[in-house]
């Protein structure tokens, strides 16, 4: 657990119940977590080189996760991103066309996922060497 202690994660999900569940669950496992229900607010507070990983919901009102990803990349090119979604992926053609080739299928987490599995997953992602 020591290893993950200093990792800082940003969670963006429009479901208040999920935002707080992810925040509590990840904090229990030693991560430092900032969490937002509103993607626009999250983006306006976003700073480069602050986070080790972003956990982004896809289907959100006003700004979906992909749009958030695009705008966020302009600010921080290097940060790792994992999408987490309850949606059917084929519905988001833009993901399969644009984001998949960039991120790889492994960076998409399907809801529902237990907190333990989610932690495991994020640790794996953070353990990998940064590609760029």
């Amino acid at each position, binding site marked *: 657990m020591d290893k993950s202690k200093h990792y800082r994660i940003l969670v963006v999900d429009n*479901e208040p119940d*999920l935002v707080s569940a992810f925040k509590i669950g990840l904090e229990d496992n030693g991560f430092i977590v900032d969490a937002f229900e509103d993607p626009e607010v999250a983006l306006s507070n976003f700073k480069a080189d602050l986070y080790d990983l972003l956990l982004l919901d896809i289907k*959100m*009102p006003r700004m979906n996760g992909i749009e958030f990803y695009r705008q966020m990349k302009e600010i921080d090119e290097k940060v790792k991103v994992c999408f987490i979604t*309850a949606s059917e992926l084929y519905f988001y053609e833009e993901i399969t066309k644009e984001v998949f080739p960039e991120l790889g299928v492994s960076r998409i987490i399907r809801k529902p996922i237990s907190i333990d599995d989610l932690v495991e997953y994020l640790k794996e992602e953070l353990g990998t060497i940064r590609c760029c």
Partner: protein
Amino acid sequence: MEFADEVRHLDGLKANFSVSETEYLASASLSQQQKQQPTQQVQQVIYSNVKDIVEQQKYVFESFWNRAMPAEQRIREIEEGIEPEFYEVIVDRENATQILVDLSKSLKKEALFLLPNDKSIVRIDKIGIIDYLIKASQNEGTGAIMIICPISEVNSEIIKKVSENAPNIRIVNGNDSPYGMYIVDGHAFRAELKEPEADNFSEAIGFSVYSNRKNTVDFFKSVFELLWNERKLNEELIKTGKMQEEFINVASHELRTPTQAVLAYSQLVQKHPEKTEEMIQAIYRNAKRLQRLTNDILDVTKIESKTFKLNKTHFSLNDLLSSVVDEYKENIDKANIKVRLLHNEIDNEFFLIEADRQRITQVVSNLLDNAIKFTKGKVEDVEVIAKRESKKVDREIVVVNIKDTGSGIDTEILPKLFTKFVTKSETGTGLGLFICKSIVEAHGGKIWAENNTDGKGATFNFSLPLNKQSKQQGQQKQQEMFGGCQVS
């Protein structure tokens, strides 16, 4: 020889001849073109008194005579502007192009075009035909302008131009066909497609046929109609397929999201005794959300498979509205939502209905949920009113209005509000109002919605037929309730 003082009219004769009992005389001019020389007219005269030839030509004359119409009739037709029937095969492609241009230019009532491939609309646009159609569509009195055309990137610009400038012109996506068909105001023009990739209309077509014969035009029209209906059906099926796909996406999102919450909190609750109550609340909230969705999906399945059954009893709608409203008031207070719920009970009105109590409760709850959901934020009112309306002497109805002061209904979705999967909300499946409509209609009532005329919020209304004895029983019930207490 018998003399007949009758003159008849016949179109399209290429020669002159006369025939009597014993003689045959004919003249014809032939155009003869020789190399490097101007065209020369060659006059021919044929004379015969051979019996067989005379007999044969008499037979030819009679067949013409029988096809011809009395001259008086033709004169009348000319005076009335009636065009004689024709059926022409046109080989000259420039001529064919001109015919189509002229037809489109003169369009008054109806145009039905079957375009053979995606480039066809580009070709006919080049010779101004699309602009003529657009112009005609803007005139009052122009009827249907319908185009069946394979739609692709090749013609998207023109399709866009048509839909922007002439919403009355209807276009459906078609398949490639070996010919183009153009029916304009009782004229039918059909051109074979010889060079599908050609840039110009006259280069693309082979021979064509042009006619105003009623039978021909009717036949072309029926072919067009068959194709149109087939293409329309196809479009509907694609739309249904897309809607199903969207439903699967919405339903799976709506199923997995609360499941995620239940899964996460049931794990967390063990580690966080200090937050037990809060987390159990969250589990309960999300389990309820799952329950609602499950019920909605089951209801829709029942509606669609026509196994939706009502369990009707006689009860007072007043009581039902009061108890639903009271329950909501309690929940609003608990959840600290800034909505004021008003229920105006009209004095001395009692609405006895024969209905499925649980289903009507579901309708009222759904409409109230929506009203509250879209009113959240500041202190606003949601009003529930029931009033009697009589359509006919023997048919009285009660109309329930649920009026809010929220954000109103998006004008884009207003026309299809009660259709499945229509929602602007991120947390809805778009099933609720569809189910409400099905419930109300199963009771013989109607449901409708409108944005309030004062520009603030929306009103949802539904009607239900009143039980015939509603009035008498209402009075009776009032007497039962108040009779004994009345002070005389």
